[in-house]
C-alpha cells in the first residue's frame, strides 16, 4: 500500500464513519443507554408490537410472492420472446427509480378510493402488502436474470432428451443453479420491505392497529421527543439489515467458491 492510497483510505474511512458508522452506532448506543427494560417495554407496547408484527408478516409474504413471481418474470425475460419485451425490461426498473412518495401516489391511483377497478385497498392492511410488493419487485428479477442468461441450455436439453419432464428438469437442473441468486434477491427484498416508509404515507393512512408499520412508529417516537423509544425500534430494524448483509456475504462467497 503506497502513501497516497494510505491517506486516501484514511479520508474515505473517516467520511464513511462520520456519515454512516457513527450515526448508526448512535442508534444502538441510545438504545443501550435506555436499558434493557426500556427497550423491552417499547417494543412490547401494544401498538408498536402490532406494527412490528404487521411489518414482518407483510415482508415475509411479499418476499415469498417475489421468489415465485420474480423467478417467473426473469424466466420470461431471458427465455421467452415476443413483441414489446423490451418495454417489460423498462417497467421492471420503475419501482427502483421512482421516489417512494411517488410510488405511493401511483398505487393510490389504481387502488385508492377512485379505483377504476373498484378495488379500495387504501387505508387497510392490504395497502401495506401492496406497497411492499411494488417497491421490492425488481430485487429477485434482477438477481436471477443474469444467472439465467449464463446457464447453458445444453444441460437442460440433455435432461429433457433423457426423458426428464419439464418440471423435473426445472427442479433438478435449473433450480440448484438459480437458488443462490433467488436467496440473495429474497434477502434484499425482505430488508427493503421491513424498513419501507415513503410509499405507505399516502396509501396506508398509518392507522394504529390496522395499517401502521414499524418505521411509522419510529417516526412518531421522534416527533414525540422520545429518542430512546425511536432508537429501540430502529435497533430492531438495524439487526434485520445486518442479518441480511451477513446472508448476502455468505451466499456470495459460496457462489464465488463454486464459480
Amino acid at each position, binding site marked *: 500500500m503506497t502513501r497516497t492510497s494510505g491517506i486516501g483510505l484514511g479520508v474515505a474511512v473517516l467520511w464513511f464513519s462520520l456519515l454512516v458508522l457513527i450515526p448508526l452506532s448512535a442508534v444502538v448506543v441510545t438504545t443501550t443507554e435506555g436499558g434493557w427494560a426500556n427497550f423491552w417495554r417499547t417494543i412490547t407496547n401494544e401498538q408498536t408490537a402490532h406494527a412490528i408484527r404487521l411489518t414482518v408478516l407483510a415482508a415475509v409474504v411479499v418476499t415469498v410472492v417475489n421468489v415465485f413471481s420474480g423467478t417467473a418474470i426473469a424466466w420470461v425475460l431471458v427465455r421467452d420472446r415476443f413483441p414489446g419485451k423490451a418495454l417489460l425490461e423498462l417497467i*421492471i426498473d420503475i*419501482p427502483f427509480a421512482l421516489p417512494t*412518495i411517488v410510488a405511493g401516489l401511483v398505487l393510490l391511483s*389504481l387502488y385508492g378510493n377512485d379505483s377504476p377497478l373498484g378495488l379500495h385497498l387504501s387505508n387497510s392492511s392490504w395497502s401495506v402488502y401492496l406497497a411492499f410488493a411494488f417497491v421490492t419487485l425488481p430485487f429477485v428479477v434482477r438477481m436471477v436474470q443474469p444467472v439465467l442468461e449464463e446457464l447453458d441450455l445444453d444441460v437442460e436439453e440433455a435432461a429433457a432428451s433423457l426423458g426428464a419432464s419439464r418440471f423435473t428438469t426445472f427442479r433438478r437442473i435449473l433450480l440448484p443453479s438459480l437458488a443462490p441468486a433467488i436467496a440473495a434477491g429474497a434477502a434484499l427484498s425482505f430488508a427493503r420491505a421491513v424498513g419501507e416508509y415513503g410509499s405507505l404515507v399516502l396509501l396506508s393512512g398509518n392507522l394504529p392497529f390496522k395499517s401502521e408499520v414499524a418505521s411509522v412508529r419510529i417516526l412518531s417516537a421522534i416527533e414525540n421527543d422520545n429518542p430512546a423509544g425511536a432508537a429501540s425500534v430502529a435497533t430492531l*430494524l438495524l439487526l434485520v439489515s445486518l442479518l441480511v448483509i451477513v446472508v448476502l456475504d455468505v451466499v456470495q462467497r459460496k457462489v464465488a467458491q463454486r464459480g
Partner: protein
Amino acid sequence: MAESQVTRHARGPVTYAIRVFAIGYLLLLVAWPVALVVTHTFDDGLNSLRAVFSDPDTVHALQLSVIAAIVATAINTVFGVGMSLLLVRSEFWGKRLLSALLDLPLSVSPIVVGLALVLVYGGRDGWFGPTLDSWGIQVIFSTPGIILATAFVSLPLVIREVVPTLREIGVEQEQAALSLGASTWQTFWRITLPSIRWAVVYGVVLTLARSLGEFGAVKVVSGNVLGQTRTATLAVEEKYLNFEADVAYAIAFLLASVSVVAIAIVSFLRSRKAYS
C-alpha cells in the same frame, strides 16, 4: 445464441401461461398505476404543471431537491471511485468487513437513517450537534442535514457499478503506464478513468435519481420548513394532504419523468454496450 434458444425450444402452454402471468403482474402492479398518474397530471391540460411553476414555495422545493441531489452525487462519485480503487487495487486489514458495511445504506430504513443523523448531528442534544452549533453550523433542520441524508441513502450506488468493472479490466495497462514512468495521478486520469467511465456514468445517473427522490430520511432531518427546508418529495406529500391533488400529481410526474428517463438512459447504454 438467443435466436437458437428460442427455435430449439418448443413453446408449450406452460410458456404462454408464465408469459401471461408476468405481463399481467407487471401491468397491474406497475404499468397501469404509473400510466394513471400521467393521465391525472394532464387531466386539465397543462394547468397543473403551470400551477407548480407559479408557486414560489414549490419552485423553491424543486430547487432545493436539485441542489441536494447534485451535491450528494458529487460527494458520492468522488468517494465511490476512490473507495472502489482502494477495494480492488490495494490490500489492507478489514477490507472484507468494510466492503460488506458499504452496502449497509441500501438495506437500512430511511427513517432509521434520519434518526441516526439526528442523534449525532441534532443541534440540542446530538453527539456532535452542540459543538457544531457553537461554530455556527446547523446541520439538522437545515440544508447540510438534507445533503447528508441524501448522500447516506445513495452511498453504495457508484461503488457497486465501478468495482466489478475495475476487476474486469485488470492491472496490465496501469502497470505498463507506471513502468514507463507515468505518475500515479497520470495513470489514473489517462488509463484507469477512461476504462471505467461508463461504470461511473451509470453510477452517477443512478445516484442522481435516487438522491432526487429521497423522502423518509429527508423528512426526519429537514423539519419541513416551508420555503426553507422543504424538498420536492415533501411537497408532494403536503400538497396531497392539503387537497391540492393536481399539484401533487404534477410534482410527482416531474420527479417520475426524471427517474424514468434516468433508468432508460442506463438500460439503453447497457444494451448498446452488450451488443458491441
